[in-house]
């Protein structure tokens, strides 16, 4: 991790600073590693749909886990979100964003599913309801 931080600092070079210690190959290796991980996780996601390895209703959960893992890979290897000191603000902002996203998506699903249940009790066919009302 300290190597990554070192590269990140090199990225902060501005005009007048010495780029002689700069190593492009290290950075390319980082991107290659991230790409390999991302491709593997993507392939696993697409294979998951057609597999019988996992109990049917569990596939959605497995897909969500793979997606979260891949998003993590992207954040670390492509966006260079690290624990470096000048990255603290970025990480905190991301944490706040995740909270908001979880509230919007989780809250919407929660509320709308409850509404759905209340609007259509037992999914009774309409003609039966009409007969009951006579």
């Amino acid at each position, binding site marked *: 991790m300290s190597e990554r931080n070192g590269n990140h*600092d090199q990225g902060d070079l501005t005009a007048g600073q010495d780029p002689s*210690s700069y190593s*492009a190959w290290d950075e390319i290796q980082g991107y290659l590693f991230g790409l390999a991980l991302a491709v593997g996780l*993507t392939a696993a996601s*697409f294979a998951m749909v057609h597999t019988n390895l996992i109990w049917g209703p569990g596939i959605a959960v497995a897909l969500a886990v793979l997606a979260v893992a891949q998003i993590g890979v*992207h954040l670390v290897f492509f966006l260079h979100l690290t624990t470096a*000191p000048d990255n603290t603000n970025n990480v905190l902002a991301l944490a706040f964003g995740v909270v908001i996203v979880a509230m919007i*998506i989780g809250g919407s699903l929660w509320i709308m599913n409850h509404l759905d249940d209340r609007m259509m009790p037992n999914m009774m066919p309409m003609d039966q309801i009409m007969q009951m009302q006579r």
Partner: protein
Amino acid sequence: MSATDAVAGGRDWDADPYKLGRGDRDGRGGGHGGGGHGHDHATGHGQGGPASKRVIVGYGFWLFLLSDIVLFSCLFAAHAVLQTATAGGPSGRQLFNPTSIALETACLLLSSFTCGLSQVAADARNQIMTQLTLAVTGLLGLTFLLLEAHDFAGMIAAGDGPQRSAFLSSFFAVVGCHGAHVTAGLLWLGTMMAQVFFKGFRPNIMRRLLCFNLFWHVLDIIWVALFTIVYLIGEGR
């Protein structure tokens, strides 16, 4: 307080200015910046001066991108709620073409990779490689857009456009919004290539390149959520 005291105090802080114990490893690394270049010091805490403009610009753009992600999360929430509201129309399983989605995913993932390479090339001040990797990024992005447009055109021609059902409305909203972002990204990419070519690797151009990189990578992150929620989980229904 004498001048020497102030200097000594400064050295004390330099040992661990908000690195919270992680400074040791940097100290051991020693090589880069330790020799008095100064860019190894923690920035943005009043120690070693204010954060570099690059860090601040990156932070500001990251905040914008997070707000964009919140926007997408609203569209995702709408789609998740409406996923079964097909109104007797076709469901995801009947509509989506897995081969096309896999190709689109490959295009976007590879373009994210080449975009990262362009950042490496720009850091090395290599004009040819920067232009080349940016061009490849643009071509992959264009391929993605054309594939998506082809899918959309096919669905609309078959009468399964956004007006068919609530499910399809939300589908076109969320995928279309991502497509619009990619289109805007391609225009930005074109202007960045021109700026790098004509203005060179000036500090402000480098900051713009950084922002473009962040934008493009975040588009890929949104696509990961998109192909998982909309296509793969949707296909299972």
